[in-house]
């Protein structure tokens, strides 16, 4: 009885859908969904990048007039000068789109969907329908966020963290009106989509692994995806709860986050009898709930990049990853610690010093597993024959950014030091190097490495290297000097720096940063050309162009519907058997049953 029903299910799924609509648009195939996520994130990155360019324009030349921009944005550049409200909207939406709709989406939802079934040896994700639904929910979220630029007084402008009261009082700033409402709706769609994805990730990785693929034989990318999904499932609900309460505060008169005695644009918020409209609420409550998500969220961005880096580095160093188990342990430690350090975003919010101390200690503890990872990467490179292909350059870039961004994290994690540096450009430098930069470089590395599994072709290596070097140098030139201006007191989110005498002499550095940012932005055009040209005209890749070991390299590029033309392969070893002594080739596929390689314990 049960069997009859089961085979009915298989028949429905076994034949690849033929119509264009169901093959490429409303697909349930994880590879198509992964590419859909990736391309959408790429489009969102263009928007968010353009916003950043305008932020830099204002910071480089705060009082200049831009008649050309006035023609595009007649209201926001009245007289050619950027409106302050427009500026706050720019950095708010740059942060929101980049953090959630680009750097959470491309590595996790994009590469996670593309790679997880290929690396665990499954025909598809555990719940293919949920997976398709997840993408389209995300897509609606993107539309809502993009639409918010065109509603009423413009998009949200209260910072990507949406702190009340700016986000809770509709009249606070123009962006607090409809724009903020759209921000909340867009985020709800994003969270719903990420939750559906996360359920698929954990279930597929734990339940659909092929025969022989024990947990400690999984590629580190797979470990990263698993931990990211767990973080998402456990951390995002805090923001869901907070967003819901924010909606009630905004539209239904509750006081979850709003205290008594608010004066809005010089008018006290009171009713006819002089009673305060709101009372007893706590804006700090939002901060706690937001950062309970927000801190794990930065590891949602980071961890996939760390996984990609390990797998790419091992392949192009032709050497097993050093300290595999400590790599797994370090990622688990980082993911666990990320839940107990959110308070370090709130040191100056009036926190008990003892509580601050606890958060500071937890934060600095993260340096330990992070250092383990860096040590292992360096040890992997040690005495290896490095092949400097494009993916390897990005992997090395991730290590570089992880170190330089991580070191400033140790400064910021100490509550006493943070009081000076909080909300300055030092923080902007820190998180752009480690969270944004490492995640972005990880995505570029993964793109060039797994491109064959997306489109069956190789990306152009020459263009890839041009793109890497321009991006690498421009990235450091953009974000490294921000440490100096931050220490000098340059605050975040400031519209005109030159109005402060003690900061005015930093202006030349700001101009250098702006020019570097423009070079950084322009360099990305090389990537777009390379991506689309290679997808259509690139050199056919074949099954395993890099001589890598993972399961994804045992099937044609791109893999067919169902991932393997024949039976699902069985796994006999971990994916890091490179340059094994006495082996017939310099690498041994995970499916190779030969009794050599794989150290004991794996």
């Amino acid at each position, binding site marked *: *009885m*049960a069997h009859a*029903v*089961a085979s009915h*299910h*298989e028949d429905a*799924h*076994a*034949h690849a859908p033929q119509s264009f609509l169901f093959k490429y648009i409303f697909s349930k195939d994880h590879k198509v969904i992964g590419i859909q996520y990736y391309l959408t994130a790429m489009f969102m990155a263009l928007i968010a990048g353009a916003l950043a360019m305008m932020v830099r324009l204002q910071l480089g030349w705060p009082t200049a007039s831009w008649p050309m921009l006035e023609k595009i944005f007649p209201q926001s550049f009245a007289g050619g000068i950027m409106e302050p409200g427009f500026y706050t909207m720019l950095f708010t939406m740059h942060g929101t789109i980049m953090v959630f709709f680009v750097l959470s989406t491309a590595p996790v939802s994009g590469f996670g969907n593309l790679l997880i079934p290929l690396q665990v*040896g*499954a*025909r*598809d994700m*555990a*719940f293919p329908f949920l997976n398709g639904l997840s993408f389209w929910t995300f897509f609606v979220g993107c539309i809502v966020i993009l639409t918010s630029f065109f509603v009423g007084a413009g998009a949200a402008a209260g910072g990507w963290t949406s702190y009340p009261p700016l986000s809770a009082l509709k009249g606070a700033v123009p962006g607090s009106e409809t724009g903020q409402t759209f921000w909340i709706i867009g985020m709800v769609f994003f969270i719903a989509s990420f*939750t559906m994805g*996360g*359920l*698929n990730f*954990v*279930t*597929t990785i*734990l*339940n*659909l*692994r*092929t*025969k*022989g*693929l*024990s947990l400690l034989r999984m590629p580190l990318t797979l470990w990263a995806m698993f931990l990211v999904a767990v973080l998402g*499932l*456990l*951390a995002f*609900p*805090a923001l*869901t*709860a*907070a967003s*819901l*309460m924010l909606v*009630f505060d905004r539209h*239904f*008169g*509750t*006081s*979850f986050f709003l205290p*008594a005695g608010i004066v809005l644009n010089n008018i006290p918020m009171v009713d006819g009898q002089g009673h305060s409209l709101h*009372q*007893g*609420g*706590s804006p700090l*409550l939002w901060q*706690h*709930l937001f950062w*309970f998500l927000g801190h794990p969220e930065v590891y949602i961005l980071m961890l996939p990049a760390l996984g990609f880096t390990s797998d790419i580095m091992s392949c192009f160093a032709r050497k097993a990853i050093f300290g595999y188990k400590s790599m797994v342990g370090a990622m688990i430690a980082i993911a666990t610690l990320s839940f107990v350090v959110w308070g370090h975003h709130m040191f100056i919010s009036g926190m008990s010093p003892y509580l601050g101390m606890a958060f500071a200690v937890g934060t600095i503890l993260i340096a330990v597993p992070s250092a383990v990872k860096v040590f292992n990467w360096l040890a992997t490179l040690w005495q290896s024959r490095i092949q400097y292909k494009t993916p390897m350059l990005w992997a090395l870039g991730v290590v570089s950014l992880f170190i330089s961004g991580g070191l400033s994290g140790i400064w910021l994690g100490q509550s006493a030091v943070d009081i000076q540096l909080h909300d300055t450009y030092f923080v902007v430098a820190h998180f752009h190097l480690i969270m944004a930069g490492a995640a972005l470089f990880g995505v570029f590395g993964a793109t060039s490495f797994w491109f064959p599994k997306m489109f069956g072709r190789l990306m152009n290596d020459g263009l890839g290297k041009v793109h890497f070097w321009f991006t690498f140098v421009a990235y450091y030139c953009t974000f490294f000097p921000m440490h100096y201006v931050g220490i000098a007191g340059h605050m975040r989110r400031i519209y005109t720096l030159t109005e402060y005498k003690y900061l005015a002499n930093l202006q030349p550095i700001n101009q250098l940063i702006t020019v570097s940012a423009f070079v950084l932005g322009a360099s990305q055009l090389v990537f777009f050309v390379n991506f689309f040209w290679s997808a259509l005209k690139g050199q056919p890749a074949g099954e395993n162009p890099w001589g890598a070991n993972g399961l994804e390299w045992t099937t044609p590029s791109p893999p067919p*519907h*169902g991932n393997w033309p024949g*039976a*699902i392969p069985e796994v006999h070893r971990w994916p890091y058997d490179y340059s094994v002594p006495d082996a017939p080739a310099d690498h041994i596929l995970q499916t190779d049953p030969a009794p050599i390689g794989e150290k004991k314990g794996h």
Partner: protein
Amino acid sequence: MPIDFLEAKRARHSGGAPALAADPARFGLWAFLGTVTMLFIGFTSAYILRRTSADWAPLAAPSLLWLNTAALLASSATLESARRRQTEASLTVLLRLVLATGLLGLLFAGGQLLAWRQLAAQGVFLASNPHSSFFYVLTGVHGLHLLGGLVWFAVVLARVRQLGHVPRHDVLGLFATYWHFLALLWLYLLLLLFVF
């Protein structure tokens, strides 16, 4: 040749790699319940913090809530009885039990709405005081999860009728897990809102 999408799962059942849960659907459901739990932990922390403020005015529980609670627990009981007997009981009996579950669930949802109306009639609204805000929001979010369960319930019922038997995947078992979770969650919310 059609591809066998479940072969990896079968291979494992016949002595392949160890799995943490035999059934992906069951594992996925528990993961979902985990994320729902975190949602209510988020609300709980907000509730505990907000309760310390000076303007907190405790609300008396509308007595209707106890009747609602009884209906929800009874619906859990009928569902559990169906789940335990799904192999031996006749389809008619199973359908009756599952239908009773759904009706009792609807009764609970209607009762919650009525409790809202009663409070509103006393002049206690969403924004009246922090306790009433939390009462409306928490019962509302719980109610939404319950309504989602009822939609699922309707799908299960339609499927059972269409197939003439309980489908594979232990659908009744999965549904029961979700439904019992909602009943426990409601007991927790009652304790949080009105006892502690």
